[in-house]
């Protein structure tokens, strides 16, 4: 069995790469969507709300197939985009909620100092928004990191795919799936742990959220 471990390891690397890529992509897009939805003009706001609605309403597998078959992309890129936009839709709504829970006076005070709207959003609103939404983002990570396993369906050779390849030769599904389960546990827990460190690092009085 030892000789098959390098294959499994390659799969782990692909899973982690895919997971981090799509999650960070989703985080960035989620920020933009939330800010567009709250501060954009009518058209932008409507577009962002529509985006969030569509990508939260479709099964992840359907989005994956649409990207993969629709745009002739490599499986990995299609998976990053599909899963990334899906988590972006969810994350945008956490961010939007956080923005809307920030008192209006913060924006007013920033503008009264002479800041432009964009500067006020970046310097005053976003630092508060991120602190308020970090616990929910951590939760979202724990939920969506497992969706990387769906990329298997469009041919990304991640951990699950590597595992199945081994099973077809060794016929020991229980062993392999147990190993895969433990690896998923580590990836999920590791990520949420890193996020909790981030949360602690940026913790300041006035932003206490019991998690």
């Amino acid at each position, binding site marked *: 069995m030892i000789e098959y471990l390098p294959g499994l390891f390659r799969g782990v690397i692909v899973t982690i790469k895919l997971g981090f890529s799509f999650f960070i992509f989703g985080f960035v897009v989620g920020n933009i969507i939330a800010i567009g939805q709250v501060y954009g003009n009518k058209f932008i706001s409507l577009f962002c709300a529509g985006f969030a609605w569509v990508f939260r309403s479709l099964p992840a597998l359907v989005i994956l197939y649409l990207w993969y078959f629709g745009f002739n992309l490599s499986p990995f890129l299609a998976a990053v985009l599909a899963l990334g936009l899906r988590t972006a839709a969810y994350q945008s709504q956490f961010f939007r909620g956080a923005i809307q829970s*920030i008192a209006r006076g913060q924006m007013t005070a920033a503008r009264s100092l002479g800041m432009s709207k964009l500067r006020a959003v970046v310097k005053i609103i976003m630092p*508060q928004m991120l602190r308020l939404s970090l616990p929910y983002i951590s939760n979202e990570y724990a939920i969506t990191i497992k969706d990387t396993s769906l990329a298997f369906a469009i041919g990304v050779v991640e951990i699950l795919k590597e595992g199945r390849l081994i099973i077809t030769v060794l016929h020991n599904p229980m062993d392999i799936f147990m190993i895969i389960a433990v690896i998923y546990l580590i990836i999920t827990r590791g990520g949420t742990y890193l996020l909790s460190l981030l949360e602690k690092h940026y913790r300041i009085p*006035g932003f206490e959220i019991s998690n």
Partner: protein
Amino acid sequence: MEERKEILRVEDLHKSYGTNKVLQGISLNIKQGQTKVIIGPSGTGKSTLLTCVNYLNPPDKGRIWLEGEEIIYSEREINKIRQKKGFVFQQFNLFNHLTALGNVMVGLTEVLKKKKKEAREKAMYELERVGMADCAEQYPAELSGGQQQRVGIARALAMDPLLIMFDEPTSALDPELMGEVLDNMTKLALEGMTLLVVTHEMGFARAVADDIIFMENGRIVEEGPPEKLIMNPEKKRTIEFLQKITQLYGED
């Protein structure tokens, strides 16, 4: 006495929310070093007037001059205009994620583009002015209301504004905390800062104001120096209001 420079002039300002006419033709001017206090019943447009003057809430109609130059509204211009007008809020509105020092610095670094070191020195100077230097590293959530408001004043002062507008700066404070804020405002007035203050604190108005403006239903009913407006008002509504406010807050 030499003729003092006019800092702010407002002419025929109008503002409506739907059919609700909040401001119905407000005109006023304020000269350098003057303190003007606006009083009047709640919902009368006093706060709206201040936010309109700063275009935080653009007026429907009316003209505004700053240092003799008419303000032509545009998104770019208005950011420059606002730098010159300090604003102190009823709810303090300190930036929650910044320390007291950070709150005073942020306008200097982000708007006036000052170097960090220079901004820090200036911010510490302003915090000292309001007696808050000891709390420089504390966050708003760790400060009392009165302390927060003093930081709010320091934040406005740091921009070296032409005038500072106060929107009911003590209304959200416990009575024992009002004093520290009012003392600082009095100090500023005596130092020659130009102040436009919306307040119910008649003690402050009487002691510090050059002029008191009585506003009701979006109009200025009467304007005059404290000794005239408080002791010897002309209009019936002014008399009624002053009686009511004396009943509520007591003679001081």
